[in-house]
């Protein structure tokens, strides 16, 4: 966790406060104002999903980024929290219990906590690959159980609930999506603050120690197993809250929510956003939800793009988007950020060439293989109409990719020089 507030110069107390809490105020304002700008129903649904996924991926990053535990089964706590929340909603509305809807995510959170406690006790005894394997085993175990225990998990069609049938608070019944948005946004904001606060506690710091050097953490006198276990429980709690929010948002929970695919997608979100920084998973959740919503409208091969983006991230930017941003923070502080703009602008040419070539290749292939039977070989890409049956578009696409790679390799060292000049000054780079 990179910490900028500690290094900030102390002086004017008001400025100090602004530095420390300004980002949260901005986040709050953004959350409040967003639905006023994007008022369409689709945008509102997307933003609700973003809120849920932000909580889930931050909870996930408590394990992966903060404590170094790679989990392949975190959807278990999200899903179980969600299912319990759905059942709780049904019980509350059937029994007319005086419990309002905004409390329901807490039920999911408690469920996540309880199952985090049970499964964490067995899985956090080991770290590293063994932990990853246990989490995969537990995840698959619960996912297969969810198809067997039809009474609790509702089989293929899942379990329904109706959020409007519950006790109304000051006349708010949570029927319209906008009311649900504000409910999700407030839970999301509170959870973000709570999870950030956790990173600043001594325990949160010990998590980093356990991640970086478990042996020394043991010598200092901490039980690495206990640190992993407590973090696992807390992470399960927040994942359960995200599940509860999902239950309220969709009014439906089914086996997909608890499957390995859900575990995989939260891993993708956290990693693409950047696991090394607190804001990473937030960026990742927002970006991935956006990609899911808009890319799936644009192209039928969107899952392929998604996988390729992930692979490219792992290969060339393991710090994720947040990592790339943090790389430029020293430049910003030195005031040399503008120096590298020309070098980056030149790099844009091969980058665009490569991306355009890859997109052309995938789209032409997708059209030729999937759509030709129904729509014929004629297609349109970037405003250019052509025939996917001919050889030329394939050659052009491959040439673009090849050209992009070659030019990129040629310019790469210059860009690295420009970066180190800007970051350390001309003398240091020599």
């Amino acid at each position, binding site marked *: 966790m990179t910490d900028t507030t500690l290094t900030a110069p102390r002086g004017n107390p008001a400025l100090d406060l602004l530095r420390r809490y300004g980002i949260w105020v901005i986040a709050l304002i953004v959350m409040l104002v967003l639905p006023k700008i994007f008022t369409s129903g689709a945008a509102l649904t997307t933003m609700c999903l973003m809120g849920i996924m932000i909580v889930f991926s931050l909870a996930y990053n408590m394990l992966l980024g903060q404590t170094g535990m790679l989990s392949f089964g975190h959807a278990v706590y999200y899903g179980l929290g969600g299912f319990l929340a759905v059942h709780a909603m049904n019980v509350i509305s059937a029994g007319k219990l005086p419990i309002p809807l905004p409390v329901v995510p807490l039920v999911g959170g408690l469920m996540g906590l309880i199952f985090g406690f049970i499964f964490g006790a067995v899985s956090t005894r*080991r770290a590293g690959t063994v932990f*990853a394997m246990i989490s995969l085993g537990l995840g698959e175990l619960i996912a297969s*159980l969810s198809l067997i225990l039809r009474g609790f998990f509702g089989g293929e069609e899942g379990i329904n609930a109706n959020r409007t049938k519950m006790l109304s608070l000051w006349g708010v019944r949570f029927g319209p999506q906008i009311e649900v948005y504000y409910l999700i946004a407030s839970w999301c904001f509170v959870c973000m603050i709570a999870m950030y606060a956790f990173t600043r506690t001594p325990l949160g710091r010990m998590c980093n120690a356990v991640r970086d050097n478990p042996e020394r953490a043991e010598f200092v006198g901490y039980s690495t197993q206990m640190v992993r276990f407590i973090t696992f429980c807390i992470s399960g709690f927040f994942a359960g809250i995200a599940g509860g929010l999902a239950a309220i948002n969709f009014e439906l929970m089914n086996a997909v929510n608890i499957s390995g695919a859900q575990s*995989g997608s939260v891993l993708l979100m956290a990693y693409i956003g950047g696991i090394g920084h607190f804001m990473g998973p937030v960026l990742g959740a927002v970006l991935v939800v956006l990609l899911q919503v808009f890319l799936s409208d644009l192209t039928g091969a969107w899952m392929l793009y998604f996988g390729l983006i*992930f692979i490219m991230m792992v*290969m060339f930017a393991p710090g994720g988007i947040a990592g790339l941003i943090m790389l430029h923070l020293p430049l910003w502080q030195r005031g040399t950020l503008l120096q590298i703009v020309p070098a980056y602008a030149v790099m844009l040419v091969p980058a665009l060439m490569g991306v355009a070539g890859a997109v052309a290749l995938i789209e032409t292939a997708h059209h030729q293989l999937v759509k030709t039977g129904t729509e014929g070989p004629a297609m349109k890409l970037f405003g250019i109409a052509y025939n996917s049956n001919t050889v030329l578009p394939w050659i052009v696409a491959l040439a673009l990719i090849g050209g992009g790679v070659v030019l990129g390799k040629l310019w790469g060292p210059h860009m690295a020089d420009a970066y180190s000049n800007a970051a350390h000054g001309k003398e240091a780079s020599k």
Partner: protein
Amino acid sequence: MLELVIFSTLNGVLYGMLLFLLASGLTLIFSMMGVLNFAHASFYMLGAYFGFQISQWLDFWVALFVAPVCVGLVGAAVERWGLRTVHKWGHVPELLFTFGLAFVIEEMVQMIWGKLPVDYRVPRLLDFPAFELFGTTYPAFRMFMLLISVAIFLVLLMILTRSRIGLIIQAALTHPNMVAMLGHNVPKVFMMVFGFGSGLAGLAGVIAGPALVTQPSMAHVLGPILFVVVVFGGLGSLPGAFIASLMIGLIQTFAIAINYSIGDLLSTVGMARPVQGMLSDLWQVTVAQVGPVVPYLMLVLILIFRPTGLMGTRES
């Protein structure tokens, strides 16, 4: 009953040997490079699809030799230009790379061959019943599958124990750093082992494709089971992987044939079975339905009580 036992044993051993074809490559790759290859089952799927495509164009018998080689080359290329780049970031990115690769391969296969199962048929030469027992016939192709996997198993055993390259690989299983110190080109060995392991998985795909269903989800179904085999047997232990493959093959095959539930057990000892309530299904599900869960239960239990696995010596 005897009929059930014989056929289930045959099928179980066959499934187990197929698992071993995959698990042997996976565990070799893991012990040398420390990478648990998530995409290993995807190479198996690629093998099935390549086999299908080549037998469409040419012949099944050509596919049997060409398709595994193609898959092996793909595997070697993945190691050379993918994993080697990621290697410098550490083990977690390597794992994530193979995770993303499995995702991409599945999408590509869906794009090229469609989402529905392809019509990958048993070759005409082997499309007859091998023998008849208690009025049930057993297909010759399955015997052929069994034969191939046993043959591969024996060849693998010979290579690993009797050849020079096998000695290097065996040494790398236990002392990877020492092997590098002795001047072997470890990256090249890695690439060859990765390609060879992928090729084995591809071969398993070519012969399993006609007998099982060749569809885009086949990697996703088999992948986690494969991990169970490798971890259960002990990471890096080939004999362990062999025992675990057979065990899981037999357990899964026998579970499908047993139609009893806990509720049945309770009622035979004279207790009433609960039929109401949300979790009443727990008493109603039969062993056959629970079958898919059993391997994961085994995985979790062995990791808790014996993290090194059956025959393994290393924890991670």
